[in-house]
């Protein structure tokens, strides 16, 4: 950094036209992020999906719960853009409301997983030794239980609604974050600025949260973005099996459960296609954005 400043100063002395301000971090971040076309595409599509889901009650052309016995499983057309389901409900409106639940569950779970994972990872990485060994063995144990088995076991016992489902997803998906944060803390805690704060007697909690954590935010944000996609897939799978979000509350997963019946497959094969495509697009975009963030937040590459 110092070397860099020196070079700039020399250049400035030689060439007064170069008196521009250096780019701010935000500017550098945007420049790098917008270079990745797929990430920009992903971010725009996600924004549209999130807005559509958030404003579902105002955007949806039909009442998503209103059944219509004479118009069951109608094909996509002028009135019902994506057709109707087994009960004559408008598929497009249900997708919007389903998106609300699916995205809410995903964002809520990831927020919870971040809190748990960051706390455990930070404690393990900062203190090391015995604490690290015990916490990381605990992480090893939780990771070894296949997540679907763990999820289903807990779900069958507690039979949660979609709000408690968030808690259960958080409790089963924090392990990768914990490992990541621990790694970051292990390397950051030996750096000079941490040693300096420790020397002047700063409290451990302050060093962890105000000094080390901000420096570890990059990888955490990237992991969180990718985790959102993962939770959307898990929620969809669980609800598809009939063990997640329970009807009549629509979610992308339980719409697929509704759409897998044999009559639906024969009479309206396009119906199961829509929720699945929407899940696919959403997860894909989260992965694109995650990849873009990884490059943009990496201080080394340009």
């Amino acid at each position, binding site marked *: 950094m110092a070397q860099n400043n020196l070079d700039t100063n020399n250049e400035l002395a030689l060439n007064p036209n170069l008196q521009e301000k250096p780019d701010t971090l935000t500017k550098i971040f945007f420049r790098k992020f917008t270079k990745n076309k797929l990430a920009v595409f992903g971010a725009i599509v996600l924004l549209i999906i999130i807005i559509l889901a958030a404003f579902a009650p105002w955007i949806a052309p039909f009442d998503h719960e209103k059944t219509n016995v004479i118009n069951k499983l109608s094909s996509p057309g002028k009135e019902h853009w994506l057709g109707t389901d087994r009960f004559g409900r408008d598929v497009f409106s249900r997708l919007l409301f389903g998106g609300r639940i699916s995205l809410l569950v995903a964002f809520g779970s990831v927020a919870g997983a971040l809190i748990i994972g960051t706390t455990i990872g930070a404690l393990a990485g900062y203190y090391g030794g015995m604490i690290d060994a015990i916490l990381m063995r605990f992480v090893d144990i939780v990771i070894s*239980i296949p*997540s679907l088995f763990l999820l289903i076991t807990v779900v069958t*016992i507690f039979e949660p609604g979609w709000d408690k489902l968030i808690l259960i997803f958080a409790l089963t998906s924090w392990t990768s974050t914990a490992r990541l944060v621990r790694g970051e803390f292990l390397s950051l805690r030996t750096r000079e600025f941490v040693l300096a704060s420790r020397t002047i007697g700063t409290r451990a909690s302050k060093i962890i949260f105000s000094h080390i954590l901000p420096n570890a935010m990059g990888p955490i944000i990237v992991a969180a973005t990718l985790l959102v996609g993962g939770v959307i897939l898990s929620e969809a799978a669980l609800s598809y099996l009939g063990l997640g979000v329970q009807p009549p509350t629509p979610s992308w997963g339980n719409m697929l459960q509704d759409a*897998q019946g044999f009559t639906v497959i024969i009479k309206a094969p396009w119906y199961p296609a829509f929720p699945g495509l929407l899940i696919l697009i959403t997860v894909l975009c989260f992965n694109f954005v995650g990849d873009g963030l990884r490059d943009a937040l990496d201080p080394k590459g340009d």
Partner: protein
Amino acid sequence: MISYIIRRTLMAIPLLLGITIISFAIIQLAPGDPTTLMMDPTLKPEDQEKFREKYGLNDSIPKQYMTWVGNMAQGDFGTSIIRRGVPVSEMIMNRLPNTILLMAVSTILAILIAVPLGIISSMRPYTKLDYTVTVTSFLGVATPGFWLGLMMIIFFGVKLGWFPTGGVSTLNAPFSIWDRIHHLIMPAFVLAAADMAALTRYTRSSMLEVLHQDYIRTAKSKGFKESKVVLKHGLRNGLIPIITIFGLMLPSFISGAAITESVFSWPGIGRLFIESAFTRDYPVIMGLTVLSSVFVVIGNLLADILYAVFDPRIEY
């Protein structure tokens, strides 16, 4: 090496104990008493007491845990609540061969497709071909497996009638290898899809790293053919990290198998697990959760040992 293998194996023991403790704790948190589920509600109070005594429900919780783990270690997973008296181990053993068949075929399929794609991609990085492979693998990772299965059933099963829509074989038909393969193709492909995508990306990046090594340049400058350099010198080292990836992917692979079995009515342990979840058959749920975790632990143990065997650069 031998001492490493012994040390690594010993490390798996506390892991297995931890898994059983967590599973046991979750069941203990269940509201209500297992007796209410297992007992005939018309039983007289003194008979209920006899029942509790017989099943050790009056013991302290640590003692109940010890009994449970001790029984499992001897292959006794208890008896099903729903199918009264049928041992859980028997139910699992009846279904296990189907699951092993599905998982083995999927793994082979994933390797046969993903590894060559990853290698080709790494040999021509940043070309149209590489981008096509990369985008396809992105799609594969983002596709919900059960939905892919559903779409394949609709398209190849119902519309075109090329493949059966579920099951391991045609009902009441005499055994035929072709019939079995016919039933296996779609579920095996669906289960392989997600891993295939991830494996392609890992193979590509691992090979890219190896192909930049000095010894590859040396081999090339000696005038060896590119295919020989890549396959003989590059591949041997490039595939070593893939062993670890396999270990890491194992838990999601097992979860994926359960969902795939469910979509294709494949009578394996995953489907048994999901059926038991609906009927709240706790002994089966517990047994399968522990068993699937044991699978993961053993898989990771094998991956670590194989890694040590194949990578002579690492000393233990």
